[in-house]
């Protein structure tokens, strides 16, 4: 069946993310008072399909499937859903799925649109161990930034409810906002360390193709801007007491910037999109 390939399986996974995202709206409206087991199970199903799609693609390529934007977005989504399923093993943290599902659905649709422009079995865009490590670390950092933006969305939602004295602020299973802020910070630090390491490997261990330069490559410049953005966010938090809502908006805004500009700058890059 030529139509039944990794892309089709991934499409089913995205459909399940969509179902979960719709169900999450009801959970959010009820302030997480409902049991989140069903949502967790839907995301387990989506994760299984997502994993099968990634494995199938990996086997067909004979390497880790992080070779183009489609696979990269798929990989970031996979790290996010994996992290959620691990955390969701604790019943008290299962509500996180209500925040993860819309993001996963959005990323899934985005990845699927990208997949339409990718050949089914293609030569990898990256080759060599350092290149794979460079790509994997950077995508893992985006996964961490994605999770921090989810935590930040939770923070903003809960903070708003507490400010406006909504009952659901007390009823909900969302952790205290102080703990959420700590989670945002730790995920940002993890993401920043991964991004820094990934960029350093790219700069030190890899050589740009002949006739190209890192300093004129759109993706490299963009990556440095993203790095500066997250560094500024952390410095503002530590040195200038930019905490709470501003910090959460910073995490959400920075990741929104990454999501909205990643594709465009990758296409402009001569090194990353030869």
């Amino acid at each position, binding site marked *: 069946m030529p139509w039944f390939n990794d892309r089709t399986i991934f499409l089913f996974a995205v459909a399940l993310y969509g179902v979960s995202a719709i169900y999450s709206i009801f959970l959010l409206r009820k302030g997480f*008072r409902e049991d989140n087991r069903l949502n967790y199970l839907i995301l387990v199903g989506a994760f299984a399909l997502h994993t099968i799609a990634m494995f199938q693609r990996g086997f067909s390529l004979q390497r880790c499937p992080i070779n183009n934007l489609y696979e990269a977005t798929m990989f970031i989504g996979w790290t996010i859903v994996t992290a959620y399923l691990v955390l969701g093993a604790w019943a008290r943290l299962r509500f996180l799925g209500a925040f993860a599902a819309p993001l996963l659905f959005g990323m899934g649709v985005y990845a699927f649109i990208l997949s339409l422009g990718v050949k089914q079995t293609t030569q990898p865009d990256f080759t060599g161990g350092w290149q794979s490590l460079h790509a994997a670390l950077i995508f893992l950092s985006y996964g961490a930034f994605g999770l921090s933006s989810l935590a930040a969305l939770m923070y903003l939602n809960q903070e708003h409810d507490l*400010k406006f*004295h909504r009952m659901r602020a*007390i009823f909900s299973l969302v952790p*205290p*906002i*102080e703990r959420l802020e700590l989670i945002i910070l730790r995920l940002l630090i993890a993401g920043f360390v991964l991004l820094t390491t990934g960029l350093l490997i790219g700069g030190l261990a890899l050589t740009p193709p002949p006739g190209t330069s890192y300093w004129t490559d759109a993706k490299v410049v963009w990556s440095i801007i993203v790095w500066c953005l997250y560094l500024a966010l952390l410095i503002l938090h530590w040195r200038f007491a930019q*905490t*709470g809502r501003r910090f959460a908006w910073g995490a959400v805004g920075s990741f929104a910037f990454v999501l909205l500009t990643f594709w465009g700058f990758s296409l402009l890059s001569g090194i990353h999109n030869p």
Partner: protein
Amino acid sequence: MPLIVIGLSHHTSPVHVRERFAFADARIPATLELLRSTGVADEAVILSTCNRVEIYAATSGAPKQSMPTLRDFLVHCHDYRDPLTDEIYTFAEPQSIEHLFKVACGLDSMVLGETEILGQLKKAYDLALQHGCTGAVLNKAFQKAFNVAKHIRTETNIQRGSISVSSVAVELAQKIFSSLDDRQVMVIGAGDTSEKAARALLSRGARSIIVSNRSHERAEALAAELGGRAVHFEEWAREFDQVDIVISSTSAPHYILDRAKLQPLMRARKNRPLLLIDIAVPRDVEPEVNFMENVYLYNIDDLQTIAADYLKQRKEEIARCEAIIVEKARSLAGGRRPGLPPLSEPAFGHE
């Protein structure tokens, strides 16, 4: 042997009647023994709290005969000679089992869904068990009642949320701060409600209390009682950089804390979250401060609204709880006596 309940509670009798029927703890073992030795009951448990006095008994006789005997025992035991109308209620199965389950779940309590009664019921049962006054019927009924109470607590929202102002304050603090351990609480104005809220916060791990009051003696007295320290009323703002939760209840006719005053204080606190509980009327804290970042202000109306919403939610859960109780009571009574009348047909007894 059927289970019979006889007693009086806050539903049927005022406190001046209940107090005359109350059993002192020391008197209960002897009374249980008397119940058995006189043949009034084969098994018995006496529950005596501030809101109810009840005897749960299993008798070999028919409930119709046993119930008047138990009633006479209860009345004569306390030498009560005043006229009684509907103060004393009696239940036979299956209502007696349902009643026991309702009591265990806090459905019959004055504060709907409260959990203290379960502890009191366990204590009453343990006392009877230690004195050999329980047998197969009461053991099974009480064990089942404790299981039903646990089931109701986990499966319904009847015990969820706080329905007093002080516990709502604690719950709000728990939604803001990762942990209440090591949190500094400041009480401005040593009123009764603020004292209760401070005590509730301390019981959940708050580090210590700073008390400030116009009358410094009163502040010192309360601080000593709560294990905290007192500061002069003019100096409370100086302590603000260490404080996480403020409970304010002064009788000042104007705001004692406004946006202009709080802004530099928040900078000194490095913008750490601050929970302000303003239970004073007129209010002590300018409402505008709630728009400041990391400041969460709740006044007495906000707290009472939350408490009332919780109560409403608990009331909405009653039907669910009763359905569970009826089902569990049916399974217990049916298991013991096949052919029991359907639960919709009331057995005799009244409340």
